[in-house]
């Protein structure tokens, strides 16, 4: 099998075409979903921040909080989902389609 990257030919030159992706810019508000991973896996933001997830995979993914506080619909390729975190705390989430994918948003005061 050729480990190609189907679905990645479209304009936005996704930074995910090569394997180990280094952590996303510190202090950002974006989470990239690529190769069935949330990147960064842990994002720290101040309360009131809107975090945006973008799916770069050919497979759909969701973002679903373990405590139920947010749950995106299925995001197809290049689709995004945003959620505004108002309450400080640590929010673990999964992709409900591929629940072995896990991530955390830490919201500070």
């Amino acid at each position, binding site marked *: 099998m050729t*480990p*190609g990257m189907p679905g990645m*030919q479209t304009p936005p030159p996704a930074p995910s075409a090569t394997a180990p992706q280094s952590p996303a810019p510190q202090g950002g508000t974006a989470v990239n979903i690529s190769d*069935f991973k949330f990147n960064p896996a842990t994002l720290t933001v101040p309360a009131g921040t809107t975090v945006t997830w973008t799916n770069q995979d050919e497979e759909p993914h969701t973002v679903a909080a373990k405590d139920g506080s947010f749950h995106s*619909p*299925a995001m197809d390729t290049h689709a995004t989902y945003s959620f505004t975190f108002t309450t400080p705390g640590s929010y673990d989430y999964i992709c409900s389609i*591929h629940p072995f994918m896990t991530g955390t948003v830490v919201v500070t005061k």
Partner: protein
Amino acid sequence: MSTEHDPAGMTRRQLIRHSAWFGAAVVLTVAGGEVISHIAGSADAAQTAKPALRFAQISDSHIGFNGPANPNVADTFNQAIGQINGLGFTPDFVIHTGDLTHLATPAQFDQVKQMLTDLNTPHVFTVPGEHDSTDDAGQKYRQAFGAGTRGDGWYSFDIAGVHLIGLVNTLNLKKLGHLGADQLEFIEKDVAGLPNDTPIIVFSHIPLFAMYPDWGWGTDDAAQALSYLKRFSSVTCLNGHVHQLFSKTEGNVTFYSATTTAYPLPAPGQGPAPKPMTLPAGKLHDALGIREVSYTKGQQALALKDEKLT
């Protein structure tokens, strides 16, 4: 107890990998492009007597997918339906083992439901895939396909002396497929009154065996469900989800993963994630297919015939 054949076309190294994953019991015969899976010793008699039950399985149509791995999943699904209609007999029923849709939208449910009406069979049964229950715990799925089911969409029925159970293991996922306490109780009660020699067939989307847990290819509480089926002499579990053929026998239970009508996924652990594989031009149909299943009275095992999409 278990037999292992070297499936044609599989390299020695791949075979070793298979053995390492699963430990035992792969029985696959490849003949003329078809893969015929069966329990050793059962096939000859099964071919001469008339089957009491014959049905077809299709899986993972992913209506709504439009990536390069298959730019037209509706076309290939229609071809699979046509292939079933051309089998030369009317199947007693057709089972679709989930991921009917890609994104669980109302339009995709409408489309796949409409397409399934083209099947020439008295009954179409389904179980949901995780793509059919992404964000609403399966509500839209049940609106489309849940008539006559119980709980979150599970059910059982009997045809020709065979007891068939359709399970839902794509809700409340933590890492693997999950059945849940209510459904486990349903299974226990459902089979309680059946004689031990009743053939049992179980449908689920996600495998009920640990095919590759790192990618979610297993069901966390399947052992409990299978414990209720231990006393039966013949138990066959048919699943989808993994988009490739595989079989495994554990004691009285044989598991068969089906292929897809949409696009292939990598073999377990090949690559970083179970993402759609784009095959070279002209190769896609070889990875897709349908399955015929028949049961002949007096035979312990079912006869399965997996056919590539033509």
